[in-house]
């Protein structure tokens, strides 16, 4: 027997979780772009969005993260390490691709040297994924072997009921179990009819793409020069990607004080790899685009056994020149064998 969360109990759930010390975050339309934000009631949530424009990554790897506060005095320099807040959080209404993105990035932030800033937030967060009821032309989760109801990265997976009255619950982790324990009196027992999953056609042949990228002969192929001609190097696709994790460390302040920050950076930018000498290993937009594709579908898998793409399609959906990963991988799929 499965359990059901009714939509009209959601406000009570939020209150119960808040009482248990959690902040509740969900998709919201508050600023110019939809994103994840703290909510007080179900009416604050924008659960009907196919996908927020900004990713859930922002909440674990913020655009700018203070690392160290420093004060420069006449005699000495004082510095203080800054740590992320330890607040417990529930993320309600995460799409499977966004939740997968978090799981994809865990090994990167955890290998060898553990990034405390990422894991302190991860360890204090519970992910409640809601399976998709709709998809758009840019969605490509199935192309990267995920699905509109993937439970990857989810502590709890909710499937929307056909009549829109609530969700059927699946629990995957102890953390998810504990979260539902808090609201157990608000849940119903039973099986509902769940909404059929949207059709997300496969847009490229992942096996062929990976084989082509893995062939060293293709690294200097003319293909890269042609496919990247349109790229203006704005970096939007990397900032809006749930798995892109590249960052810079910069001191920002005045003569006397400031903060050392970990800021988002992008492989699309020429300065990203520029040496002091002026030498730049990736000195053209095509070499930078190649890096992005190779990193996602070859290098990352070599290190961590998984491709660094969860198929959300934001890179294409929000590209100012209508480019994106899908087009490149389609083009590779269509190359003559």
């Amino acid at each position: 027997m499965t359990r059901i969360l009714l939509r009209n109990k959601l406000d009570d759930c939020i209150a119960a979780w808040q009482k248990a010390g959690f902040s509740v975050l969900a998709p919201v339309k508050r600023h110019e772009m939809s994103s994840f934000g703290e909510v007080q009631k179900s009416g604050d949530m924008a659960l009907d969005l196919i996908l927020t424009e900004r990713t859930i990554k922002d909440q674990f790897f913020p655009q700018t993260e203070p690392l160290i506060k420093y004060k420069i005095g006449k005699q000495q320099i004082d510095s203080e390490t800054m740590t992320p807040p330890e607040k417990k959080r529930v993320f309600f209404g995460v799409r499977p691709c966004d939740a997968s993105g978090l799981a994809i990035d865990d090994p990167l932030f955890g290998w060898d040297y553990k990034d405390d800033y990422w894991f302190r937030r991860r360890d204090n967060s519970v992910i409640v994924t809601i399976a998709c009821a709709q998809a758009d032309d840019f969605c490509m989760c199935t192309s990267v072997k995920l699905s509109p109801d993937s439970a990857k990265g989810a502590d709890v997976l909710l499937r929307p009921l056909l009549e829109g009255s609530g969700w059927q619950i699946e629990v995957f982790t102890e953390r998810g179990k504990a979260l539902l324990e808090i609201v157990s009196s608000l849940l119903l027992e039973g099986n509902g009819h769940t909404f059929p999953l949207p059709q997300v056609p496969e847009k490229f042949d992942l096996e062929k793409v990976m084989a082509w990228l893995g062939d060293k002969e293709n690294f200097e192929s003319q293909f890269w020069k042609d496919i990247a001609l349109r790229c203006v190097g704005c970096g939007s696709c990397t900032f809006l990607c749930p798995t892109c994790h590249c960052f810079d460390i910069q001191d920002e302040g005045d003569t006397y004080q400031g903060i050392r920050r970990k800021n988002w950076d992008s492989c699309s930018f020429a300065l990203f790899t520029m040496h002091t000498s002026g030498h730049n290993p990736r000195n053209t937009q095509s070499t930078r685009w190649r890096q992005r594709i190779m990193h996602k579908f070859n290098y990352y898998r070599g290190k961590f056994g998984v491709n660094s793409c969860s198929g959300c399609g934001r890179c294409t959906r929000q590209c100012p020149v209508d480019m994106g990963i899908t087009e490149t991988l389609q083009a590779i799929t269509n190359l003559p064998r």
Partner: protein
Amino acid sequence: MIYSPFPMRVVSKRQEAPGVNTLKLEFVKQEDHEFFKANYRTGMFGLYGVFGEGESTFCVASPETRKDYIECTFRQSGRVTSTLANTDAGDIVTFRGPYGNRFPIEQFEGKNLLFIAGGIALPPTRSVIWSCLDQREKYKNVTIVYGARTVADLVYKNELDDWKQRDDVRLVLTVDPGGETPDWQDHVGFVPTVLEQAAPSPENTIAVLCGPPIMIKFTLAALERLGFTAENVYTTLENRMKCGVGKCGRCNVGSVYICKEGPVFTAAEVQAMPQADL
């Protein structure tokens, strides 16, 4: 916390060449020093920083046989290196590391050693040189080939004199044509050419090679002509880095992260990387 550096006190500063300085740094905190002593091996690197300016990546130029302090040698070129170059004894700077892999010098024991460096690339080589010279009995013949653009650009001039006077080290010094002074008595010519003239035997020999990409390219060809195999030639790569610990995503050459899998590689490993990404 990750990304939090150790405070370091500047003990002394020495100008090596125009725009090139060496800082000798000591640990402010005992626990940081213990960590360094337990972890530092020759070839590893660190991020040297000044609050308000940022961090820059360069090698630890002092050997693993001398861990009471850290020496770093750098060319003054940006905000961080300019500020570091303007420090005085007693000033506090920061160090994060040691990171990366190392030269496996215990595997070099019982072998001849050939060190080849160009210009500002002597500092990483010098760390290995002293790590071996401080345990001289473990190694056979030691040859050092070092060249710079001009006589003024040669770094560690005092140590070059030391090596020249030692009878257990063969030092081959050269400057590029036009870079010599009237009283220059050593070679004039590019490193690869001078190396071939010096003709060290590849027999039971490990070569350690550091320099700018163009020098590496031609020197590798010269080493090959001398009979060295790529497995017996070691080098250290440098790329722009921000984290030093395999996360910030920029130092990779192909799939290889210089900060984690390097910076020390054999020439065979470097040749296996996509050359267009170097």
